């Protein structure tokens, strides 16, 4: 017993010394809650998934990388931040430990309750959220939101898909039957049917934003049904695209450019153009201008785009797609123009009635347009 007692004392001393050294290590390098000392615009980006997911998060990361190239911008980011209290801590850490002046928490679920809780405590920091949820009067003034009408790009992609399909049967792998997703499915189908009226879209809901195995199963089952062009709305289209390529059918992408994953079958894709949004914000902040609380837009405002067409896309189809794009650019395109029936035969938009892109009615969409095979209940 005596031996072990001696040993303990020595180890206790060593332990104390080590702990003390570690403590000093921390103090030496302490960074205060100071703002970035230079006149740089300091921007922090927060992603819910990996930066290189070939999807939602990569689209934002590409935007961040573009704005980070400006020499008067300091930009940093964090990936895979869950929509829990952890994102609140990430935001606070970016402000307190890295001096962020403007934050871009990019996932939809970061807004309520997380941004709404942190923003009032840091009135000098801007919180710009991707999702279009800002409501004047209800939310803090240093909060803003931005979102793109990517369904416009899905409409154009739908034209390409409908035009290039041999069977006239398209497929859509979707995460959840929520308005944003339904709007993409409907636009895709309406686009396809504008050039090929008897075209159909089979939709499969996987149930969540990132379920690679189920996405592959859904894609395979669509291919087995004779479908020959597939698109998707999930966080990372990677699995859907590679599965389509392996099965020898065509696909159209989503979020960002996936041509690399499916060089043969990738016809085109609906992409975000966040670089434009982030550059604009950075410029406004640099000049000291008031940043608008709500930024929304589609093709015309440069927030969305379609991937370069694959060389297999025929001239005739390109022309039809470009014509639709031009109409979006000029602002004369109205996708939701009556008469439109849903896929149960109910008239949802009467003849002569139209809902323009900014119409709030479209934000609560809970129906699938005629030509879609599937149900929002699935």
């Amino acid at each position, binding site marked *: 017993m005596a031996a072990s007692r001696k040993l303990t004392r020595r180890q206790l001393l060593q332990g104390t010394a080590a702990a003390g050294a570690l403590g000093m290590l921390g103090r030496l390098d302490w960074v205060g809650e100071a703002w970035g000392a230079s006149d740089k615009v300091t921007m922090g980006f927060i992603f819910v998934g*990996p*930066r290189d997911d070939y999807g939602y998060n990569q689209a934002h990361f590409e935007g961040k990388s573009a704005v980070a190239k400006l020499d008067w911008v300091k930009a940093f*980011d964090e990936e895979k931040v*869950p929509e829990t*209290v*952890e994102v609140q*801590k990430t935001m606070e850490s*970016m402000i307190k430990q890295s001096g962020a002046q403007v934050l871009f928490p990019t996932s939809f*679920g970061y807004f309520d309750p997380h941004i709404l809780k942190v923003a009032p405590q840091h009135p000098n920091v801007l919180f710009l959220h991707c999702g279009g949820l800002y409501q004047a009067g209800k939310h803090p003034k240093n909060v803003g939101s931005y979102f793109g009408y990517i369904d416009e790009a899905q409409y154009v992609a739908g034209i390409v898909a409908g035009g290039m399909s041999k069977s006239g049967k398209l497929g859509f792998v979707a995460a959840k039957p929520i308005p944003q997703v339904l709007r993409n499915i409907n636009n895709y189908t309406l686009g396809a049917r504008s050039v090929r009226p008897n075209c159909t879209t089979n939709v499969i809901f996987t149930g969540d934003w990132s379920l690679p195995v189920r996405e592959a199963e859904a894609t395979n089952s669509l291919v087995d049904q004779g479908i020959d062009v597939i698109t998707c709305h999930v966080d990372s289209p990677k699995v859907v695209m590679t599965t389509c390529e392996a099965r020898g059918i065509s696909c159209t992408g989503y979020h960002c450019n996936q041509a690399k994953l499916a060089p043969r079958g990738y016809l085109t894709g609906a992409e975000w153009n966040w670089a434009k949004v982030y550059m604009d914000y950075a410029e406004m902040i640099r000049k000291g201008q008031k940043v608008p609380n709500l930024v929304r837009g589609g093709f015309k405002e440069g927030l969305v785009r379609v991937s370069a067409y694959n060389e297999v896309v025929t001239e005739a189809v390109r022309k039809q797609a470009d014509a639709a794009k031009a109409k979006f650019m000029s602002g004369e395109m109205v996708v939701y123009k009556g008469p439109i029936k849903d896929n149960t035969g109910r008239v949802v938009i009467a003849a002569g009635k139209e809902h323009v892109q900014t119409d709030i009615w479209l934000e609560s969409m809970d129906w699938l347009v005629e030509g879609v095979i599937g149900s929002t209940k699935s």
Partner: protein
Amino acid sequence: MPKSLHRALEPFLIIVGSLSVSMVLFGAFVAAAGANPFEVYQTMYRAAFGTLFSWQNTLIRAAPLMLTALCTALPGYLGLITIGGEGAVVIGGLLAAIAALTMPTAPPMIVLVTMALVGMVAGGIWLTIGGALRHYRAVNETISSLLLNYIAIALLNHLVTGTFRDPESLNHPSTHHIGEANMLGLIPGTDLHWGLVFGVVACILTWFLMHHTVFGFASQIAGGNVRAAQIAGLPVGRLILIVCFVAGAAGGLAGMLEVAAIHGRANDTLNANYGYAGILVAFVARNNPLAIMPVAVLLGGIRASSGLLQRVHELPDATVLVMQGIIFLVILFSETLYGRFSRFQKQGVS
């Protein structure tokens, strides 16, 4: 030196040694990834424990892990390997939110107590299903508890997109809000919610239960040798069910806290992998509820440091997962060291 301290020295030194080896291995990994390991450790320390903010950042991440670690640790005393913490969190949070929504006029204190009880009972029953299947039908509890997680998540998604959906929650299906007045506040003077206190209390209480009561003693006997326990007349089935219930209750409480202290609603964010992180904590703590507390803080600190690592060293988030993985493996290997150092063995009497 007191006997109890002497007994604790062996596991303590082995764990500290394992963590040191892990740090060396992780340092080599970081160096291979092109960063200076000393700077990386310095950043990690600053991000996790260097300032008051860092400490709060670490502790807030540690709080749910203390509770979910109990989901794996307690059944461990009976020799069960349960990984159903995630399901207990999800079901506990979901039913706690639903309970709050059924009593819109009750005073906040009543609502919170009801939520906690409902969450704990729900989580408890969820894990007990796995325990009962094990005892009565000899179904492997690891598999059944894992599968029950998927059922819990599916049930959550089904109910928040259907029956209990707030029609206002268009693009993020959730239940209605339980009401700001019913939210659990912060510990005064800090940025931490009460979950941390619940976690610490739960760890201490369950440690007392397992180490200082007849019930805990009986559980350990049953865990050591079921046949011997049965021959001694111990009610093994009842022990399994009760321990699983208590373990699940801890997970359910973690889910209730997510709803009552953070989100105010039940939705898919309940499925935030706290249950799975808890398994790691329980393994590293060798199922001891007292050891769970520092291990949860360590893991919380590692998670908290990920942000600064990404910003300062431009390392990917996966870096901290590699670190967790290395720690986990080294600790598992270190299990083979117990009993190998004669210094720690009882001398003289056998």
